[in-house]
């Protein structure tokens, strides 16, 4: 008898939970999910089919107070994304609105989805996201867009169709060529074995850059370089260190480790120094000036590149603000200006609604100190 009462209580509680949810005001979830195409890693070229709309500069709009932006990086506690967030915060001060950053503790797309859904439920104005996996986050982002939330990709693109605008930090093909060129510079006579230490296996941006680099390497100029393979460090310092050590052990003649990730490049440089291979194995890729300053001067990483990460965050926020207040629609051909970026020159949105921040910077012993001072990261 008591047993039955408890069973009944359990069922009533669950039914009450369901009923309570049903009876309250609800934002209806979409009933259909359109299929998404995988993103193309092509360089973006603007080909407007209709007359492009020229938009005024992104000034604070009347509804700026209502503008709420949520930034979802690949993972939190990653210094690269923290720097980008500072840029977004600066933009929020300049342009109005509020910005917060939430995200998973590991670079895992399945953990990003609950944050997207929470932001949608909270009715934020815009989501700015760097996707751990282009397609895994797509259904949740499309649901957000259907609910009226603007979606701006930055750093790593969600699948085409799951964002309004993607802010690419630099031209993909350009980064790929830059990685190949830096490896060629560092390997003696542009000859030797090279290997790649990447981030997560599914990361859209790294995969696109590596593909572009492989295409560049087909050119006869690089015929002396032999690509041993690609290993994945998941943007985790421990895993990246282990993978870098594995590369050194598996390939005794390795000349260059290319790490197109700010976490991986530091790990690789540390490993080279600890293994006392400075001067025989070199490291290059994408890294923050401050993080790599010591290794540039020490000789482990004579050359590497990046872009202004603060500006990336600033631009992403500015694009989100423009989308929310209607200044741009996110279509190829739209142009807009952001006062403190690009020397005031307008940005143009290209194919697949991608807008490029600008050219990357190459850091070396000669300019590293001045960049650390001017970038601040």
């Amino acid at each position, binding site marked *: 008898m*008591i*047993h039955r009462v*408890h*069973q009944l*209580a*359990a069922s009533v*509680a*669950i039914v009450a*939970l*369901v009923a*309570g*949810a*049903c009876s*309250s*005001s*609800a*934002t*209806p*979830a*979409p*009933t*259909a*999910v*359109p*299929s*998404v195409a*995988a993103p193309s890693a092509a360089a973006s070229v603007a080909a407007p089919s209709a007359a492009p709309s020229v938009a005024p500069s992104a000034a604070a709009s009347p509804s700026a107070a209502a503008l709420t932006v949520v930034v979802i990086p690949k993972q*939190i506690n990653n210094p690269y994304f923290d720097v980008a967030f500072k840029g977004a915060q600066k933009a929020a001060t300049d342009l109005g609105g509020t910005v*917060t950053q*939430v*995200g*998973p*503790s590991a670079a*895992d*797309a*399945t*953990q990003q*989805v*609950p*944050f997207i*859904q*929470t932001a*949608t*439920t*909270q*009715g934020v104005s815009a989501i700015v996201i760097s996707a751990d*996996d*282009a*397609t*895994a986050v*797509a*259904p949740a982002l499309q*649901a957000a867009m259907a*609910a009226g939330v603007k979606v701006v990709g930055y750093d790593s693109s969600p*699948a085409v169709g799951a964002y309004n605008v993607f802010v690419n930090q630099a031209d993909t093909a350009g980064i790929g060529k830059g990685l190949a060129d830096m490896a060629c510079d560092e390997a003696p006579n542009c000859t030797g074995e090279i290997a790649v230490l990447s981030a997560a*296996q*599914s990361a859209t941006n790294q995969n696109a850059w590596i593909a572009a680099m492989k295409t560049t390497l087909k050119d006869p100029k690089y015929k002396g370089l032999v690509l041993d393979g690609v290993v*994945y460090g998941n943007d985790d310092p421990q895993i990246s260190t282990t993978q870098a050590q594995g590369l050194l052990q598996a390939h005794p003649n390795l000349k260059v480790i290319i790490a197109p990730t700010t976490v991986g490049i530091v790990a690789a440089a540390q490993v080279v120094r600890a293994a006392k291979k400075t001067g025989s194995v070199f490291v290059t890729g994408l890294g923050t000036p401050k993080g790599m300053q010591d290794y540039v001067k020490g000789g482990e990483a004579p050359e590497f590149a990046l872009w202004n990460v603060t500006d990336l965050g600033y631009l992403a926020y500015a694009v989100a603000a423009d989308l929310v207040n209607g200044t741009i629609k996110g279509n190829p051909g739209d142009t807009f200006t952001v006062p403190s970026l690009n020397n005031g020159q307008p940005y143009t949105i290209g194919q697949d609604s991608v807008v490029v921040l600008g050219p990357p910077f190459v850091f070396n012993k000669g300019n590293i100190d001045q960049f650390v001072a001017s970038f601040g990261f």
Partner: protein
Amino acid sequence: MTGTPGFATDSGATPGGGVQPAAERRSPLQRLPALLRWESLLLLILALLVVEGARISKFFLTGSNFSNLVSAEMEVAIVALPMTLIIITGEIDLSVESMIGLSGAILGWLWSVGVPLQVGIPVVLVVGALGGLLNGLLVARVGVPSLVVTLGTLALFRGLANVVLGPNAISNFPAGFTAFGFNNIPGTPVPWTLIVFAVLGLAFWLVAHGTWIGRQVFAVGKNKDAARYAGIRVGRLKTALFVVSGLIAAFAGVILTSRFSSARSDNGTGLTLVVVTIVLLGGVDINGGKGTVPGVIIAVFTLSVLQNALRLAGVSSEYQAVAVGLLLIGSVTAPYLARQTRLLADRARRGRPPPAGSIAPGEVVG
């Protein structure tokens, strides 16, 4: 006169392991209220969390939040059902997260080579059952502890998933498939996957508490030697439970793949811990023999409400993990503390120290 040291005046071993004095020996049905006290407490915690969640955020009690909250946990929830029975028998299955990944990987790979999902899904369910069979045979026939076996298959299945799919992700699944895992029943905030969990939950509830299979599971958990002498085929039961666990884990893998529209070899990583957390939170004793399916069902919702409320409140991932950890530690130590206080209360009530040579509950005789 207490008779031979170690035996109470009424003899009779109960399945509770060891001998209990007559005053405390009760039939299983009478003993249930003591267990269900944990369920009631859990219900109370759930209710408090719901109230607190509604207070923290006005979006908490909305249909879309309910839908998110529920759909995020359904894969873990259905795997927790057979895990409950396995833990009640005194075993454990750590390999579920890797089977989730393996089934998703195989399904994705089959799809990528042109095999339709109607064929692919039954194939991965069979693979799940076979994986469970491997676990079951090693545990029941060979006698290796399940902790060790499933630790091995945790790595084995994940490795196989990597072999099948490598670093690739298959994502061009048909919209109908994604809709199943991601969408709600049209016009309602109820996800399709909740229906799946409801059906499975009811089935397991019935089997565990209303059929002879359930009786056997509890008997084996309390004292597997006594159960064997009572005629229960312990090995066959355990093997069957592992097969079911593998099968359900494979099904959960299909749902996960559907929900993210993405088959990757690392899908499901870390889920074993969540499943075990939920089962223990539901009041199942890790040593076996005690626990209820409705407790685990409530625990599913308790955990997802907690995580959802914390997310809506903007609490960062690290603090969420701390909160879940504290909840788990509290839930496993509370029954032990409760038992200690009950022992002390009983002794105080009887007003005399326990007779010399008597056996405390849980002590093994000879």
